[in-house]
């Protein structure tokens, strides 16, 4: 027999899923990011062309999601480091809430500055 979502429905499991999926998404995004920055080798005009492309609403939305994922992977990762390297305390759920809050704040800061 195998478990279904009922066995997994608790905060730390969801945190794991966010960490894994955000890591995967960032890994897929990175080659495109590097390629886009590499366009600067062909002069400002090429870079400008790309930056104009990113002003479309859908691309902008994708950017916000990516920043949110990056922030979530960062805060989730800090939480994991705290869990694995600091003395164990009954603070795991508080840490989790803190990580989620900080990630949301960073995503919001980016979204509002746009």
């Amino acid at each position: 027999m195998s478990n279904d979502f009922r066995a997994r429905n608790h905060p730390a499991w969801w945190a794991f899923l966010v960490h894994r999926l955000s890591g995967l998404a960032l890994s897929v995004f990175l080659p495109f990011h590097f390629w886009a920055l590499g366009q600067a080798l062909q002069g400002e005009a090429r870079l400008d062309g790309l930056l104009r492309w990113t002003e479309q609403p859908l691309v902008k939305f994708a950017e916000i999601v990516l920043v949110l994922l990056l922030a979530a992977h960062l805060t989730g990762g800090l939480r994991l480091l705290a869990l694995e390297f600091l003395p164990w305390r009954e603070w795991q759920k508080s840490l989790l809430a803190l990580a989620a809050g900080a990630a949301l704040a960073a995503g919001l800061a980016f979204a509002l500055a746009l």
Partner: protein
Amino acid sequence: MDMLQVSVWRGAASGGYRTYEVPRQESQSVLDVVTYIQRSIDPTLSYRFACRVGMCGACAMTVNGVARWTCRTHVAKVAQGNAIQIAPLANLPLVKDLVTDMREFFDKWARARGQFVPSATRHEDFARVASDSPGRVAANAGIECIGCGVCYASCDVVSWNSGYLGPAALNRAWTLVNDVRDGARRERLAAVAGDAGCHACHTHLSCSERCPKNIAPTAAIAGLKRAVAIAAWKGEL
């Protein structure tokens, strides 16, 4: 009389759920429900239990999707309306109905070097271990495990990596790593290293969330991760 609709797994891995009507009673445990079905409705139902009071760890099953001791789980706590679903523990080979084969689970304790290896003989004096020494405190945190398999059944790393030693075996190893009388620290750290060992844990915390004894195997595994990494750093692995 209020009736419970109890959906119970019947047969081996290729079986299915069958529903039984069980009279609902006050302070009824899930184990009471299973026992009622076996004694009053269908004597062919197989399940395992011994003490009925949360000491032996034999009666663990999956109740409404979550691994639990059935003897210490009140129907009132888990029933959704009048419905309960009872299945065998996950991550273990199914023998029949609610009975799983626990061999692999206990073999992994042995593979994690879960045996105490004395470093002194009977001719020497007793070891004196201060109850507030850090090692003793760390060992105490995990020593109450009774091997019910709830953590092992709840662990997704076990589901995804069948060789993974699992929370209970690693928790046991950590209590011994912290036992100053034990003489096999190096061998034990080597046994819990690698793809099937402590570093495979993703800190889902499902084990710590579900443990009926409120042990946090995740904490023990984190300790092993650090100890094994330090051993590798020193070239002792």
